[in-house]
């Protein structure tokens, strides 16, 4: 007879069989049996004890974004589980595959307001791709294998599995079969060959086509196919925030980044293009501005794996409901060799305008103070655009997206759709653990870092070699910028009295430095990058910088402001 193991040990066996080597979490009463089982599996599974459950889930996100694997985290019931919600919402909107396991009160206490009981299934329903409560250990193998399959297939997303404490103790005969089919779930839509033919005809006839690169290209590993397509046809490519790093910023057909604080050319030219080829992107309002004045001269081809995204914001002329890579592989042979030199030159002209009106002033200013853009520009130069860059949310995030010249795929980790302040520090820990041989640099504002600053403890305890830059302007800079531009300079609660970040880093035993003047910037950054372990570099930047270019919320992308 087969040896029986507990539900908790079954969970460990599932993790091992799914190839999970690292998990993030925080223990508590209702998940203690699982933590007890984990103790016996410490040779196979590394557990990173974060300082808050939000830190655990953002770390799992960072891990997944750079490795392409499913991020796994553990939390206890009640407050442990509710602390995951922000991360779940973030992973849901940014399509990050996660499996989150939460403990739950014993099944006989469900619904009784027991200690640390919360309706996690109900609360997490709108922010998960799928969730399920296990009250019987027999369900564990099947449900857990479904969880991993659902999280990573199709358009990826977070899955939450809630397990009652009695199910964690219960003994079962464990047998595991990897899930590879669910009759009600069809993650890879069958490619419609006619739509490919129709798309190729439109592309071959177009005069001013523009490719919009979304994160779908990274998620489907279609970076090479995309480059082949662009090189064969000569069509220029622009990237969304989450699409950044899918193509090297130095590629000859790359024309910049889209959206509210994107580059001048790709925004303005969106309304001159006669064809938009959107690949794995979802026309977020930060990309489109006013949709009634978006792509006004363009036909739209939308390559998208999630059918509910098609026609959601922008009406398509040809919808290709498929995995990006599969679509591109099929599309490529039908496309004619071509070049759009004249059209690409128009983008280059825009780049010159942008350089003269924005970039030059930012990078060559005469002041003694430091601007955020020169910091990022320096880091980009020194690292040759090869590092993994993790950003938080706000001005520093937009500046980084503009000035860091990504040259390797899966190098941009940021909270795009949800815009979660506090994301970067924990996400950078996960990213470093996901790609230990790559340089991981977290760039964070003084506001955002204080939302999850406790994770310095995790970095210290587990010796995670992330490089942390605080761009400190003592303001919630992006909100301040809006207050200046749209609320008549009424700076309502955006100024910050900040702590001594050196002392905080010191308290955690993390090497640190503060730079306040421009002349010391370059050497400090070099020293920071040369250091092999965690390092916190605080850079005091100008207090009231504004990020330009900017498409005002609700305005047309054509009306992008340069000053």
């Amino acid at each position: 007879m087969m040896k029986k193991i507990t539900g908790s040990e079954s969970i460990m066996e599932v993790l091992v069989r799914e190839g999970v080597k690292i998990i993030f979490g925080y223990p508590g009463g209702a998940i203690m049996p699982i933590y007890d089982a984990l103790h016996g599996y410490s040779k196979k599974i590394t557990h990173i004890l974060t300082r808050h459950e939000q830190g655990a889930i953002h770390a799992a996100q960072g891990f997944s974004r750079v490795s392409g694997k499913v991020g796994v985290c553990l939390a206890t019931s009640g407050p442990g589980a509710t602390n995951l919600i922000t991360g779940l919402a973030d992973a849901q909107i940014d399509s990050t595959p996660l499996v989150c396991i939460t403990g739950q009160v014993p099944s006989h206490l469900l619904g009784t307001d027991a200690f640390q009981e919360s309706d996690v299934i109900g609360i997490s329903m709108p922010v998960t791709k799928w969730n399920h409560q296990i009250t019987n250990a027999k369900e564990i193998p099947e449900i857990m294998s479904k969880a991993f399959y659902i999280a990573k297939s199709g358009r990826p997303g977070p899955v939450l599995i809630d397990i009652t404490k009695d199910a964690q103790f219960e003994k079962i005969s464990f047998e595991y079969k990897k899930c590879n089919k669910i009759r009600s779930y069809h993650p890879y839509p069958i490619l419609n060959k006619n739509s490919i033919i129709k798309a190729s005809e439109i592309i071959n006839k177009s005069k001013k086509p523009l490719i919009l690169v979304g994160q779908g290209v990274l998620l489907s590993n279609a970076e090479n196919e995309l480059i082949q397509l662009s090189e064969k046809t000569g069509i220029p490519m622009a990237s969304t925030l989450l699409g950044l790093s899918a193509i090297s910023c130095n590629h000859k057909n790359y024309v910049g980044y889209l959206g509210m604080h994107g580059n001048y050319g790709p925004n303005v030219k969106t309304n001159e293009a006669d064809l938009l080829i959107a690949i794995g992107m979802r026309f977020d309002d930060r990309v489109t501005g006013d949709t009634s004045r978006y792509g006004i001269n363009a036909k739209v081809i939308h390559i998208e794996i999630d059918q509910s995204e098609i026609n959601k914001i922008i009406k398509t002329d040809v919808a290709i409901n498929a995995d990006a890579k599969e679509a591109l592989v099929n599309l490529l042979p039908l496309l004619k060799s071509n070049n759009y030199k004249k059209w690409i030159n128009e983008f280059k002209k825009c780049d010159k305008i942008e350089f003269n009106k924005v970039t030059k002033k930012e990078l060559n200013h005469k002041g003694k103070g430091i601007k955020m853009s020169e910091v990022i520009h320096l880091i980009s130069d020194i690292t040759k655009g090869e590092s993994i860059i993790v950003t938080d949310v706000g001005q520093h995030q937009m500046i980084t997206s503009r000035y860091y010249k990504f040259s390797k795929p899966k190098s941009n980790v940021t909270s795009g759709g949800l815009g979660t302040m506090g994301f970067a520090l924990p996400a950078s820990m996960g990213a470093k653990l996901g790609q230990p041989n790559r340089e991981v640099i977290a760039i964070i504002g003084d506001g955002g870092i204080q939302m999850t600053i406790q994770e310095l403890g995790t970095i210290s305890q587990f010796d995670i070699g992330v490089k942390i830059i605080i761009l400190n302007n003592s303001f919630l800079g992006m909100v301040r910028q809006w207050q200046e531009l749209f609320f008549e300079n009424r700076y309502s609660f955006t100024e910050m009295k900040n702590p001594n970040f050196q002392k905080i880093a010191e308290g955690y035993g993390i090497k640190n430095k503060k730079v306040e003047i421009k002349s010391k910037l370059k050497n400090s950054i070099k020293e920071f990058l040369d250091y092999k372990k965690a390092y916190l570099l605080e850079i005091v930047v100008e207090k009231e910088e504004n990020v330009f270019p900017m498409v005002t919320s609700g305005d047309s992308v054509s009306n992008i402001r340069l000053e």
Partner: protein
Amino acid sequence: MKNKGIYQFQSSEEKEAKEYTLSVLTENKAGLLNHITIIFNRRKLNIDSLNVSTTEVKGVSRFTIVVQSNKEKIIKILNQINKLIDVLGAFLYKKDEIYYQEIALYKLSTKIFLKGDIVEKIVRKNGAKILIIEKEHTIIQKTGSKSETQKLYNELEKFGSILEFVRSGRVAVSKSKRKTQNFIKDLEKIKSNKLNI
């Protein structure tokens, strides 16, 4: 329809609000009702009526949902419902594409029947039937569309003594020849569980 192509919008006529019936086939999973109603809630769309029942296929449930919406909005909602992992397929119907019924029960004071046969005539004229007669109250049952059950309500209300009124959610079957069993068999055959490259 799950994996059966994408709805394309034709023109601005689709902005106009109309009555739509959604028929959603699902796995029998706890919490799915909540998941479906959240989708309507997010878009601030009121559900006029909702019915959940078993189907002729074991383990498969059918949600019948009636809403007033424009086509553009309802298709986006339909796509979101179709995206739910445990939904087998969601279908959208206009009134003329389905056979549908609702059932209404009217609790009246038995006294009003003693005054003459006028109430009884109304009941008969409306094709309703008297379900139960008790000393205190009488129950009338009427099956039909909402406007039909409402018409009877309005006529009875004139006598001022409807003690209780309740109307069920709509149940509907489509006019198409599709068999639920075959739909599910076809669904199981689709090779969309993994990438084909």
